[in-house]
């Protein structure tokens, strides 16, 4: 094997530098959005420290043997489920959700760690040679692995993280090569569930589409019947699910269905976020000069609404730079997924890509008013120690896979 001694061959600078640029942009925006607030003033320093710590973790994961990940898959998955159960008992309640575990001065979200663990274990399961996704049993096992954390996270409840897990599950099944029928089987209950949120008519239309699809595939009556029953059940389950959501999350869903229903309540953030970004114009209002940002028209803008700070103070130019940095990161990860030396590692990369991508999709989408307000952070940019740490960990795994791509299996 020919060994390239250039740095870029052993260490993927594109990925590392793109992510670092995003962290720096995030630090600037965190500084700007918190310098006027009394109790958030230390956020810039905390984020800087978190970055320093997570760089150590990144390099640690970069250097460890690649085999470690396969070995750690099942134990970390089980550990993460335990943590998710633990958080329901001892977790701290912040804005209606019990999603944080704290010890000492440090606190983190088990859901963040569960992302990593689920990626590893699901990739492990799917890459086993005996796993065939045309087999209903295997699809079922994959669903159980993917949906168990979702169920636990729903109990917190944390809507945003649940979406990430569902997306992750679908992406990995898809990458593994699930058949069209399998995809319909997996996807249709979700679609029916969402449709029923909008009302009975949409629910009926979705069910009719499912029946049409079942006729198209012409599988046996028992299987088709069970799938239909599953879909009907999920439609009715939505109601129950909706009721376990905290009121603020219910409001957010209502706001998405009809954004003008409550312009001063739940719709307020969505409107103010758009005003902030739109008023940034082409060049932006300049560092520390965004009046929406400086006057705190948007709550918690250093976390979930950080994109508004960038949009307002750095304008179209700044926003596009951030979006292009993410695009570079995503495309590079996708390319790396086809390079990976085995299916397990390829699936891991797709899993990580999906986690980053869904965060990006939902976070930026809600800031610019395309998607409902669901509180999840923008990777590398938003303030938050445990989020940054886990994202850098994921990046470390990627860099390790890149480093070891040419090693023999």
């Amino acid at each position, binding site marked *: 094997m020919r060994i390239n001694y250039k740095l870029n061959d052993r260490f993927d600078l594109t990925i590392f530098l793109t992510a670092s640029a995003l962290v720096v942009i995030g630090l600037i925006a965190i500084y700007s959005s918190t310098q006027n607030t009394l109790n958030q003033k230390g956020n810039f320093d905390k984020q800087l420290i978190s970055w320093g710590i997570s760089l150590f973790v990144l390099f640690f994961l970069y250097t460890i043997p690649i085999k470690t990940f396969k070995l750690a898959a099942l134990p970390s998955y089980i550990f993460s489920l335990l943590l998710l159960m633990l958080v329901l008992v001892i977790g701290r309640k912040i804005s209606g959700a019990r999603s944080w575990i704290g010890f000492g001065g440090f606190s983190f979200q088990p859901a963040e760690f569960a992302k990593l663990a689920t990626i590893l274990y699901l990739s492990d399961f799917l890459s086993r040679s005996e796993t065939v996704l045309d087999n209903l049993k295997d699809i079922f096992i994959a669903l159980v692995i993917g949906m168990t954390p979702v169920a636990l996270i729903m109990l917190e409840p944390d809507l945003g993280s649940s979406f990430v897990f569902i997306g992750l599950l679908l992406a990995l099944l898809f990458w593994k090569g699930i058949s069209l029928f399998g995809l319909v089987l997996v996807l249709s209950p979700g679609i029916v569930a969402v449709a029923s949120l909008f009302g009975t008519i949409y629910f009926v239309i979705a069910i009719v589409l499912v029946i049409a699809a079942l006729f198209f595939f012409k599988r046996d009556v028992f299987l088709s019947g069970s799938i239909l029953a599953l879909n009907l059940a999920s439609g009715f389950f939505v109601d129950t699910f909706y009721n376990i959501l905290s009121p603020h999350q219910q409001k957010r869903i209502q706001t998405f269905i009809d954004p003008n229903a409550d312009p001063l309540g739940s719709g307020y953030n969505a409107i103010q976020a758009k005003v902030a970004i739109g008023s940034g114009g082409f060049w932006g209002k300049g560092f520390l000069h965004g*009046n929406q940002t400086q006057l705190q028209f948007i709550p918690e803008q250093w976390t979930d609404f950080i994109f508004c700070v960038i949009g307002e103070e750095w304008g179209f130019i700044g926003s596009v730079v951030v979006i292009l940095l993410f695009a570079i990161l995503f495309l590079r990860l996708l390319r790396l997924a086809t390079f990976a030396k085995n299916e397990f590692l390829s699936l891991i990369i797709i899993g990580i890509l999906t986690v980053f991508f869904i965060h990006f999709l939902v976070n930026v989408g809600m800031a610019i008013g395309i998607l409902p307000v669901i509180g999840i952070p923008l990777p590398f940019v938003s303030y938050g120690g445990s989020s940054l740490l886990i994202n850098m960990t994921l990046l470390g795994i990627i860099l390790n896979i890149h480093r070891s791509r040419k090693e023999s299996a």
Partner: protein
Amino acid sequence: MSARIVHIDRNKVFYAIIIAVVSIYVFKLFDMQILAYDQFNTKASDNSIKAIEQIALRGVFYDRNMKLLVENTPAYTVRVTPAEYDTSLNRKLESVLDLDEGYISNMLFKNRIYSKFVPLRVKRGADFSSIAWIEENKEHLPGVDYIIEMQRGYPMGVMGSHLFGYSKEISPQQLKKEDNYYQPGDLIGAIGLEKHYEKDLRGEKGYNYILVDSRRREVGKYKNGVNDVPSQKGKDLVLSIDGELQKIAEEELNGRPGAVAAIEPSTGEVMVLASSPEFDLNQFSYVTPKDYLKQLMDDPLKPQYNRATMSAHPPGSTFKLLCALAALDLGVITPSTTLYCGGSFNYGRTFKCHGAHGAVNVISAIEKSCNVFFYQLIFKIGLDRLKSYADRFGLGHKLGIDINEEVRGLIPNSAYYERIYGKDWPKGILVSLGIGQGEVNVTPLQLANYCALIANNGKGFVPHIVKGYLDEDKKYHPYTFKAVDTGIKQSVFDMVKEGMFRVVNGAGTATNVRISDIHIAGKTGTAQNPHGKDHSLFVAFAPYEHPTIAVAVLVENAGFGATWAAPIAKKIIETYVRRTMPKSTQTEPQKIVVEPGENFAD
């Protein structure tokens, strides 16, 4: 093998999704930040820059001697900021601020649609002890604070409740009707001078531009206040009212139902306009307590009703002056004409006099208030001709004084009786009309104006309360007023005035108010009251030689004019004339000659 192909296909799907999402987001940002920039930018500015209205200081009132009658005094206003306020404090705060139970929760409910960070006024004019209590218990009273605002004060101790009037919070109906000046919650003059001169008194609002944060909390001035527009104080009005006389009138009436109006004959300036019972204007400085309003409404004496300009009663014997003027001016009698009074007069039935005066001429008929003389006189004058003289004196007309609360009263003519009784209306009605009883109704202000015109020989001005205003540099700007001329001969006035002189200084009906060195000329009256005791009336002017004051006094349900009304007039006249006697400083006001009969507004 097939797995590899699948991977490449699926790779393209991922690729397409990433490119699609990124493209949509970039396009959406282009749309928001470049195409719709102006719209969002305007919204962002509206969001954070707030124009805060600065209510202008209201103009104050000076009396004719430049003494302050109505001023602005700083008062404490207690406010509650709903977002920080704890409603469990309601009961405590209500009791400390002396508010009705449930007032605060009701107020919070009414204002629930507004920002919770905008403070609401729960009490204006809070007393110092409650402010001290708030200050002491600050840390236990989240969301409660106080500011200093201006409210009306009455430093001379003049009540002037009907005259000055009060302001109250603008009603939704008024908001629709008025120009764009007012905002909900603004005060607007409701009655009296405060209402009539609202546009002069209110000044011009100013605007301060401030930066507010997302919770509408002020964080600083916008551009250091370069765009701020300062408010402009309203005009300070100079009233023709004499504070001291007004106070005497109020004290003399002393809560008895009645009214006093005094006018300077040469200028039409109203020096006194008092109505009794009064009410406490301080109670109207902001939100009037419900029980106080109820108390006013339930009072059988109806204190809110301005008796000086709105109560129309028969003028009684004071009306005889008009009959005498008309008869002499028309030439239906001469100064030497005598009519015989045998103590009664027969016209269908017997009309009584208070004595048998024998043969009386016009002067002694006025002096003695002989009814029989005037019973006969009205038939010589004729009803419609009498009415035309009443019109010239403004009787039965709104005088157009500068407060809005004014009634017309009534002087009937033949058309009026035809409408009621038909073509052949009984002429017997006229008999009592000749002595000012029956369907004649005039207000105390009309009587004062009538007396002032007699004093000034038929010439004068439309009565007015405000004579001018002070500008910012305290420079006085007088208003001009419409002149009035009755067009009656001087010799006629000489006769009637001599009769009035004798009422007090001869053997007349009001000799009890005689003063040795000040010659008062007057006429008593007793207005028959079908609902109760008669009303006591007195009109007078003084000094007889060069009149400087004309007064009309009404004391309801008090009986004979000389007994109750005349002493009040005497006290006012004496005070005024003694004060002004040494210097006879009468400036000739600007005169506008008008045709007789079109003297008054209505």
